[in-house]
């Protein structure tokens, strides 16, 4: 059974993703932000990380960079709902959703996904990231 770590600051999203992925046959752990996610990774390395990009405490792009650097085997899927936030280091006033996802990709994400998405979409993204058929 493949393991997934879901990093999202939104509890409802963490919970529903956990439900959806467990139903799809993954073992799922959750974290509320990038820092927490890294701690979780230190404890146990999952196969896949699904991380939000715009989060407080630690920005998703930074988290992806850190994960990709320290755990190169982990496959990463970045998800984003877009929008503009002034408190980010990435000047999102001018950065578009595509730009977030592009930044995530260049930081090391293997697949990217726009919120909101369907169950099928996330499973396909994981498949794309792991290089295995869904």
């Amino acid at each position, binding site marked *: 059974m493949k393991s997934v770590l879901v990093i999202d600051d939104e509890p*409802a999203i963490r919970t529903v993703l956990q439900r959806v992925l467990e139903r799809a046959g993954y073992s799922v752990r959750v974290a509320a932000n990038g820092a927490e996610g890294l701690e979780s990774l230190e404890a146990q390395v999952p196969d896949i990380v699904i991380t939000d990009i715009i989060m407080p405490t630690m920005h998703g792009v930074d988290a992806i960079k850190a994960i990709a650097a320290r755990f190169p085997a982990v496959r990463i899927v970045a998800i984003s709902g877009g*929008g503009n936030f002034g408190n980010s280091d990435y000047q999102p006033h001018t950065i578009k959703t595509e730009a977030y996802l592009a930044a995530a990709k260049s930081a090391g994400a293997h697949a990217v996904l726009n919120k909101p998405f369907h169950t099928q979409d996330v499973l396909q993204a994981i498949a794309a990231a792991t290089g295995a058929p869904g």
Partner: protein
Amino acid sequence: MKSSLATRIVLVVMAMHAVVLPALYFGLSVVVSRSQVDVFIQHVRTLSRNLAEELELGDAIESRQRVVDMLDHTLLNGDGVYAEFIDNGQSILSNLNVRGVRWPGKQDFKFGQLGDHAYFIEIPVSRPGHVASLRLGFDEDPTTDQIQLAMHQTVLVLAAYLCIAVMLAAAWGYHFTRPVVRLQHASRSIARGDYAHSLRLESGVRELHDLGSDLEAMRRELVGINEKLREEMLENERAEERQRKLENRLRHRQRLETVGTLAGGVAHEFNNVLLPIVLYAELALAEIPAGSSAHQDLKEVLASANRAKDVVNKILTFSRDAGTPKLRAIDLEPVVREALRLFSALIPPSVDLQSEFRGPFPAVKADAALTIQVVMNLCTNAYHALPDAQGIVRVELANGSDPAGADGDKAMRSYVLLSVTDNGTGMDAATAERIFEPFFTTRKVGSGTGLGLSVVHGILESFGARITVDTAVGRGTSFKVAFPVTEGLDASAASNGSAPGVAA
């Protein structure tokens, strides 16, 4: 006291003549009377001499009666009033000495000396054996009358001369002051702010001519300064107008950007809320047997969530957060035609959809699919503005150029202008100001999201195109979109972004 120059000249001329004319009169009277007197005396002497010679030569002297006859004859012929011949102390008088004029008894007579107005002359007659002299008296009156007449004529001539002199002085004074008066009028009109009149003087007087030239030079200088000032003022006004337009556009843009930023934030939150809705609904759907009413209900939840997602996407389009449009050089005409084809299928026959293409058109920088969306959106708006779906929606495509740039945008000197015009209800200024804001709508609550024009605005911003609206209540509305022409690219050569299907 102020008096005009002409009056002064006349007064001076009159004063001069008041001195000169009496002197002239006096001098003339002396000359005239002297010459008249000379003529008279000459006449008298000649007459007397002739008589004396007759007495000297003939033998009349021997006869007293003959002498009296000769004296009478002389008096009859020559204005005489008294004639006496004294021969050896014996006096022989003329019989015609009727007036009783008496010899004054003096030797040195002068003209006009005697109260009886007679001139006396005594001439010696030399004849052997006789000590004789001839005494004659002549009437002065004709001569003094003639002198008087001459002096009267002189007065008339002098008076006529004075009149002519005064008239000449007045005329000259007027002629002399006319350029000055003209100068005065011109300077007064300058004082009133009218600089158009020349100050040059057509005067033979050098000082006046020079004065006019100097003043004219001054006026030209003034006119130059004035025009420069006026131009500077106009330039300032134009600059202020440009500045105001720029500020308005900037403010408008800032407001839209603020709203866009806000909308982006809202979209993010929405997406975070929508994701659990979608995923939970899908989880539940998987557990509930298909065909049950709960299954159907959950499908409706998903459908609603999908519609909400569309709304969010529109918001993101407005906040320019929906991705980069694929800009390329396209020919607008087939794109607009495609949009019209789609739109015509959506409207009732009561709407008169007109179109005019004044091509050929150069290539413009745009995204074909998004352009179709823009045209459809504008047409739909026009259609909604028609009361009871009755009226005209007119779409035009034309080439435009403006050396100052479209709507003050210097980057857009030439453009292709799309206009969508309806003859519907129109909008007031307050509404027109806000139509590009998201969620602003004039339709009834629930009949639209109010995102149409804000989406149009977002799309056109990403093209670098400009949209303006011209509207008035009751007259209808015209949206005009200026698409910047892609320099150096020909539309026919440009890859026309395929013929896309229905706009996203």
